[in-house]
């Protein structure tokens, strides 16, 4: 008895703490995700500890990350295109210096390297150089450092290029990933919703009890199959099928992703909408039949409108699942981070990007943080979706 007086409060406080655990975890997720994600902004897209230099006479003093990428990919070859003088751009990195100067000139320990760089740039006014700060010692007379736009939120959101590992400056625009995610999810729901709704109507209103008792558990069972298995199935069956049907060079496309995600979303949509359809009061259906309506008219005009909020919730829930789905998307969409133009193109979704790149991104680096920022976007989307589902379900008629 005495022991119980001591243990009961302990247990009860444990229970209370556990009760708050989910709130605590959500809070932790927010903290850790956003800590990394937000610190990503206001970093320079150029490798840490390196800078870009141009000749003092060059009027171009500011460049954006995509411009730098284009310069180093030699897509832009004249300063005129960047608003500067009409002179060709020449690139200069440590490699070029190695060819232009002898070891003697550079010095045994590269101690004369800054001077060499200085003279090299001076000799070629159209040059742009990319050197670690160690080597330049920030002391070039004939050259000035180029200011590079910091990663800003608006650029991150609106950027249309995702080259997180390109050097010297990484381009990190979310647009292609976001659109890829939305495209795949949207078409997944477009395929799944009518089919799922039809099946839900069949199960809830048309099928007799015997058939229902067989079909429903099968559908529920299939909700439990791991996404990686669906992904694998998509990879070995759907992808080749898409490839041969549309005569494509590769079968890993947005379409394949949509189909696989649609199949995965079906059990959720069917179960949730069927539950919603079943809440229609029997008297309401009977009232419709008593007015001479056919069973189908009753379903279309009374049962489905009555369950509308539940069906909407099912659709939103399905979209949420599809947007957050990682493995299946990773395995069948082709993972090409370009702006999606058609369904028959490879695309890359946000979760797939995180899954594919986090392993290779150096810890704490720009890329790593960019992936956390992606995680933040995904998290916010899911919060919005949860909120919508809650709102829609709460609106349900009595």
């Amino acid at each position, binding site marked *: 008895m005495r022991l119980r007086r001591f243990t009961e409060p302990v247990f009860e406080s444990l229970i209370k703490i556990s009760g708050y655990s989910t709130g605590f975890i959500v809070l932790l997720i927010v903290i850790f995700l956003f800590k990394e994600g937000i610190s990503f902004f206001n970093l320079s897209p150029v490798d840490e500890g390196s800078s870009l230099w141009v000749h003092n006479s060059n009027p171009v003093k500011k460049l954006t990350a995509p411009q730098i990428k284009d310069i180093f990919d030699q897509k832009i070859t004249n300063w005129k295109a960047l608003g500067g003088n009409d002179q060709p751009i020449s690139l200069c990195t440590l490699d070029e210096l190695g060819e232009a100067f002898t070891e003697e000139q550079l010095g045994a320990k590269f101690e004369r390297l800054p001077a060499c760089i200085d003279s090299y740039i001076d000799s070629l006014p159209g040059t742009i150089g990319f050197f670690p700060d160690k080597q330049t010692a920030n002391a070039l007379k004939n050259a000035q450092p180029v200011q590079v736009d910091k990663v800003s939120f608006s650029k991150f959101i609106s950027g249309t290029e995702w080259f997180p590992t390109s050097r010297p400056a990484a381009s990190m625009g979310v647009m292609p990933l976001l659109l890829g995610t939305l495209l795949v999810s949207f078409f997944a729901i477009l395929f799944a919703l009518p089919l799922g709704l039809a099946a839900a109507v069949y199960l809830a209103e048309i099928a007799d*009890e015997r058939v229902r008792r067989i079909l429903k558990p099968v559908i529920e069972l299939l909700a439990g199959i791991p996404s990686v298995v669906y992904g694998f199935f998509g990879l070995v069956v759907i992808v080749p099928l898409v490839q041969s049907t549309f005569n494509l060079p590769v079968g890993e496309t947005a379409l394949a992703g949509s189909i696989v995600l649609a199949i995965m979303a079906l059990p959720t949509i069917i179960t949730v909408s069927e539950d919603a359809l079943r809440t229609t009061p029997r*008297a309401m259906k*009977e009232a419709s*039949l008593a*007015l*001479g309506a*056919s069973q189908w008219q009753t379903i279309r*005009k*009374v049962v489905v409108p009555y369950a509308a909020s539940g069906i909407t919730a099912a659709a939103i829930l399905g979209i949420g699942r599809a947007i957050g789905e990682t493995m299946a998307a990773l395995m069948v969409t082709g993972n090409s981070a370009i702006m999606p133009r058609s369904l028959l193109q490879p695309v890359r979704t946000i979760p797939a990007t995180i899954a594919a790149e986090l392993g290779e991104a150096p810890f704490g680096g720009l890329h790593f943080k960019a992936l956390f920022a992606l995680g933040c976007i995904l998290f916010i989307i899911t919060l919005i979706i949860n909120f919508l589902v809650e709102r829609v379900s709460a609106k349900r*008629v009595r």
Partner: protein
Amino acid sequence: MGNKLETIDVNLYYGDFHALKGISMFISENSVTALIGPSGCGKSTYLRLFNRMNDLIPNTRIEGQVLLDGEDIYQIKPSKIDHLRRNVGMVFQKPNPFPKSIFENVAYGLRVNGITDKSFIGAQVEKTLRQAVLWEEVKDKLKKSAFELSGGQQQRLCIARALAIEPSVILMDEPASSLDPISTGKIEDLIFELKNLYTIIVVTHNMQQAGRVSDYTGFFYLGNLIEFDKTKKIFTNPSKPETENYITGRFG
């Protein structure tokens, strides 16, 4: 007043359960007939014979004849059941308007039966809302959801909905049991008014209600029709001791 409806030795089984035992009864035109009795006595089941609502429950078996205007409604083709249900309207225990606007609720029966003429539908909606003494209360908010009405208004809307396709018979299954006394009174007055145009059968738990609204009363007990007579007779001098016990509350 001729016999609008008639049942001849009707038996009804739900699976093994014998729910109606040889019921013979007639219901005259333009009258209100009340069916009373304790829960599970078969009165609602009997009511649902007349628009074949019992068909919706699996394992239901029906014997005997149910005549509407002299025609056995259980001999008609299955495809004519819609036709029957157009002719026999029904009002349910709880107000159950559809999740639609007030207007669309009343127009529903017209639309599902293939009527597309907009002006006709509009006129018919107004006419039936007036019949249901609801028009003045809702004429300015026909486009609003039917759920915004009070319980009593919803039930009158459901009555209007049943009237809109101009049935000749209206079945009411405890139409006021979920309403407050004021709304109940309005529904009862409405029933009293409507009998000039329709043949009405009303199932009720509430004996007083049967007394107030009906011309004839049938007392059901354990699937049997114990007594069927003029309401005044049943309530002042019933012939069967079971009826007497029930209406005086000395039951069981």
